[in-house]
């Protein structure tokens, strides 16, 4: 009974230590990750729902495909991955430490054949004199050796960089560190989004998970502006922000310029320029209308989506939407524009766009009334991504460890040299843990000097 229990535990342990499991996990992670790049993640767009069958929708929802990187099975894969990593390291690390702290000082006869880097020279002096000479030689040309005596032979052992055997484990540890950082961020941080109308301020935000969080200070948007290249692609989106504590501007955080790629951080909370728009609630837009064949112009005001305006001529006017910059919709034009619905008496309503900067185009329409857009008192708002992530430094620490570890694991090697002094001959053996080919010329130089040595 006890033995079967024991062997079951052993089997589980071996399973979690196995490198076959590692490869299977890495390939499974690679394959399953594809799902989330094909199926939309987050709130499912209605167009997508319309595309797929209800059964598919149900299966996908059950399997968490719409948020697959947080689904139970993906997280389980990551747990098993971490377990594999941890148990594998626990199993191997003691051997590695032992390997480093208790190196093979004496090279057994049976091991000597396996070396590809070796050199033998004839030798007739006393073993002790040879030993001293070679000790000095190794110390000068490679590294100070440890000398031991065995079966009437002297064994000199010297090594360089034994610790780089740990590089791989630094890489593995770094993965766990990154996971810890990510978990810290998800437990103690949040992501959110705020919009601030020019001239106004906010003191709290709603996170992506729907929680209301007070900032502990106020953030005011003084101004927002967007500029464009003349190819009409965007050039810069800029907010001028001021942090207020108890209603007073904070020094160094007053009139700060925020653009994409240059965020503002205050008290661990960072604000990123993300979007913008025109705040059309409550604002008035001004229009003028004149008969095509002369006559006095009439000026009037309208609100977006607001009431229908009746004009003197009997036509009615409704403002559908207005923008301060039409370029993003009609690349060949720039400046403010309004989309309006005009209904002439007894006719069907018609919708069109009035451009503020192009009155001649408005006139070309050839209707009996010419409308012009005169501007508005509308304000811009800025949209800011908000993030707080206390785990991010742990993630960067993990990333640094990973890069350093990879460098050690791939580009440094543990080099070992043994010299065996026996009656009649001295033999040198060497190997490197990585990149033996690069070590070879180094060894050959050492062997050359070894051969030239007068002993």
């Amino acid at each position: 009974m006890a033995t079967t229990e024991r062997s079951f535990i052993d089997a589980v342990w071996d399973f979690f230590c196995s490198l076959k499991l590692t490869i299977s996990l890495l390939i499974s992670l690679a394959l399953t990750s594809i799902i989330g790049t094909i199926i939309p993640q987050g709130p499912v767009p209605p167009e997508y729902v319309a595309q797929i069958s209800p059964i598919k929708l149900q299966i996908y929802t059950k399997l968490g495909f719409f948020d697959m990187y947080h689904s139970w099975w993906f997280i389980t894969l990551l747990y098993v991955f971490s377990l594999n990593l941890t148990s594998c390291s626990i199993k191997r690390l003691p051997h590695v430490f032992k390997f480093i702290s208790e190196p093979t000082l004496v090279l057994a006869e049976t091991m000597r054949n396996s070396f590809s880097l070796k050199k033998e020279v004839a030798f007739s002096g006393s073993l002790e004199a040879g030993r001293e000479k070679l000790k000095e030689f190794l110390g000068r040309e490679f590294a100070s050796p440890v000398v031991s005596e065995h079966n009437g032979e002297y064994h000199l052992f010297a090594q360089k960089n034994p610790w780089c055997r740990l590089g791989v484990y630094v890489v593995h540890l770094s993965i766990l560190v990154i996971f810890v950082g990510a978990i810290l961020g998800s437990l103690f941080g949040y992501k959110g989004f705020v919009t601030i109308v020019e001239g106004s301020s906010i003191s709290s935000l709603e996170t992506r998970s729907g929680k209301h969080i007070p900032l502990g200070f106020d953030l005011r948007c003084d101004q927002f502006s967007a500029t464009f290249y003349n190819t009409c692609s965007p050039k810069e989106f800029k907010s001028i922000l001021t942090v207020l504590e108890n209603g007073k501007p904070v020094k160094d955080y007053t009139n700060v310029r925020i653009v994409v790629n240059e965020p503002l951080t205050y008290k661990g909370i960072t604000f990123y320029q993300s979007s913008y728009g025109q705040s059309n609630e409550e604002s008035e837009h001004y229009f003028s209308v004149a008969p095509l064949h002369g006559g006095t112009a009439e000026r009037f005001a309208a609100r977006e989506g607001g009431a229908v305006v009746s004009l003197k001529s009997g036509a009615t006017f409704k403002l559908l939407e207005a923008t301060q910059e039409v370029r993003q919709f009609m690349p060949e034009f720039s400046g403010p524009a309004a989309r309006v619905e005009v209904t002439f008496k007894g006719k069907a309503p018609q919708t069109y766009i009035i451009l503020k900067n192009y009155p001649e185009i408005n006139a070309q329409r050839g209707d009996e009334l010419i409308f012009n857009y005169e501007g508005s008192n509308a304000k811009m708002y800025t949209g800011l991504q908000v993030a707080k992530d206390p785990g991010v430094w742990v993630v960067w620490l993990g990333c640094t460890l990973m890069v350093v570890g990879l460098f050690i694991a791939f580009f440094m090697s543990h080099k070992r040299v043994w010299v065996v002094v026996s009656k009649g001959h001295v033999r040198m053996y060497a190997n490197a843990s990585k990149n033996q080919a690069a070590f070879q010329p180094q060894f050959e130089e050492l062997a050359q000097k070894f051969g030239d040595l007068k002993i």
Partner: protein
Amino acid sequence: MTSSLLFNVTTLAYMASMVVFFAFIASKNKSVGVAGSMIAYAGFIIQTVAIGLRWKESYDLGVGHAPLSNLYESVVFFSWTIILIFAFIDIKYKYRVVGAFVVPFALLGMTWAQLGLGNGIEPLVPALQSNWLLYHVVTCFLGYAAFAVACGISIMYLIKAKFEEGASEASAGGLMAMFPPTRVLDDLNYRAIMIGFPLLTLGIITGAAWANYAWGTYWSWDPKETWSLIVWFVYAAFLHARFTRGWVGKRAAWLSIIGFAATIFCYLGVNLFLSGLHSYGSSKM
């Protein structure tokens, strides 16, 4: 623009280099092999000058930025890095014939860029106005290029291995004698990935650092990010394959080829078939 003339010369040089490498395989004449490498290096130098010129030209146009901002520029840079990594392996390990399987990748890139892509110099949209662009793109593409070289070597490996299985030793002479032994190809494959993997890791990290700096999220499972991680997983599997019995040799070569296929999908497929933050030249913020 002078640079685009020089890019045409580069393309011709890579084409000539490829043809000469094929002639090298057929003729087994050592000096033909040297010529293949030399022509590739000449093309590389011309391309380096052309990239520098294009950089300068962007400043002359008043929209100065490193030439890494749209698909055309990135494909050109990709070709450049492939030859760079090839040169490194060629000079260090001296297996000329590798060129016959690697230079075609660079040629393919240059041909596509010159014939199929618009080469106008465009101003940078706000999202790309950052020094991180340079660090991120350079590390990623050097990594991709090392994987391209590894893929070429893996194809050689599979051809050679198939031949050794099927044919007797006697007939294994001829063309196959030009190929390095499978053991060496396996080692070269591993070495190329040893260069590529840390670079891809750095590429992913600089991308994450940039995303965190610009958007406040170092990882958002955007399709491009996810695909770079998929590529990373495949090569991590490759690295562990050599410690696992039954996974060395052919399977490792296949992993390397699959890894490069995933790399190309990450680079181009994601932009063509999936949507996300990385659409080249789109006017996202």
